[in-house]
């Protein structure tokens, strides 16, 4: 046996509640973060990602309370992203019990943040998240939930982020997110082949074969999904059984 491919349910959190976006708008409520985290842990999730999509800065500290409560009861890796702007934000999340922090827009506005954070806390806890969209024959980085074009080439950007100390990359295809038509395998595979660090594929999972494709063809080291798990369509265990049947190494 060797390293297994990870299945990571993503919990979108706003104002202390879990919601899941469909193309990042039209949110539906799916419940209490601690209960959901416990449930996923029991189903055999390999890791949990909390994405803080709280709009108002006044309510941002709620995520710290959530992470603190989850970290007291659940002993698998926890990643937190969304609205991470400074070394101090990262420090507070790690102190609350997060194992990794994912940086998205702030890495684009200030790439030095990635360097500074990985020097201070170690690469192992710095995930750089990118939202990419296909533009003509290549992929570009977008911000603000896919609304703002940056003109930055996704492949070049991910290489740069690894040089700056990113320990892992979370790749979301904005063309696929919310569509249930599967990961952008070409994008995922291109990035996986061009960097040494593990990559997590995200955006577009609609069924279990999409998870297998992400690993087999997208060369992802981990797969992240939200809605197929949140609404009870499939359990993590279903996903793992299916992946195992398709010769993907998983932790059962």
């Amino acid at each position, binding site marked *: 046996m060797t390293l297994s491919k990870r299945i990571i349910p993503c919990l979108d959190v706003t104002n202390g509640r879990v919601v899941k976006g469909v193309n990042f708008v039209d949110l539906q409520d799916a419940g209490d973060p601690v209960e959901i985290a416990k449930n996923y842990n029991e189903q055999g999730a390999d890791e949990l990602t909390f994405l803080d999509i709280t709009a108002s800065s006044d309510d941002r500290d709620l995520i710290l309370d959530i992470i603190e409560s989850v970290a007291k009861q659940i*002993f698998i890796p926890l990643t937190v992203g969304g609205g991470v702007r400074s070394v101090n934000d990262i420090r507070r999340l790690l102190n609350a*019990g997060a194992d990794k922090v994912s940086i998205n827009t702030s890495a684009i506005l200030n790439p030095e943040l990635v360097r500074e954070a990985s020097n201070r*806390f*170690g*690469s192992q806890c710095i995930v750089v998240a990118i939202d990419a969209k296909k533009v003509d024959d290549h992929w570009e980085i977008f911000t603000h939930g896919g609304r703002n074009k940056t003109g930055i080439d996704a492949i070049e950007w991910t290489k740069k982020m690894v040089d700056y100390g990113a*320990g892992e990359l979370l790749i979301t295809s904005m063309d696929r997110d919310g569509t249930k038509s599967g990961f952008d395998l070409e994008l995922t595979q291109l990035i996986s082949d061009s960097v040494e*660090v593990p990559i997590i594929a995200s955006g577009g999972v609609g069924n279990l074969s999409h998870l297998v494709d992400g690993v087999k063809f997208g060369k992802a080291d981990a797969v992240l999904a939200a809605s197929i798990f949140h609404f009870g369509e499939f359990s993590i265990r279903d996903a793992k059984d299916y992946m195992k049947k398709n010769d993907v190494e998983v932790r059962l």
Partner: protein
Amino acid sequence: MIAIIDYGMGNLKSVHNAFKYIVPSITSVVTSDPNVINSADRIVFPGQGAMPDCIREIEERGLKDAIINAAAKKPFLGICIGLQMLFDKSDEGDITGLQILKGSVRRFISGKEKIKIPHMGWNSVSHKNNHPLWRNISSEERFYFVHSYYVKEEESGIVQGQTEYGQTFTSAIAKDNLFACQFHPEKSGSAGLQLLKNFSSWVC
């Protein structure tokens, strides 16, 4: 009392949370006080980040002697960099370790079999001996790893666990009152909690 050694590198809360959860009746403290380390019954020596930074912080905080003394006589659990630092030297920053165990720390290299570095995620640990810390844990059980360096011991017989990642590497060692693992028991679900529980009652 279990003392979790804090030398300012990384988050020790999860180790502390895990002990509080699995053995609530045993007091555990996060400490950087050599007196507390000297008086504790058991020592947990965690570590994350880069080994040169860890060694520097330990030296600057005057903890080196307390750690070496504790490692010589009390039940002592090293985790991740806390395993690596027990050895003579590391390729990472070409640094000298605590020299408690003979051997070195080397970086993974992506060779013929392409591997991602860091080695991150759940991998299986095959038991090499029937150590008390493996009680109620099956050989080949998966634990959570995140590291770019691994230890290569020189003493035969100290290997307790081995893991495959491009090659076979040592993922757990034990010698007398020492047990140390490359994986993170505090992040390895029920198997990890079981190992911490075993440590909390280990008579060595």
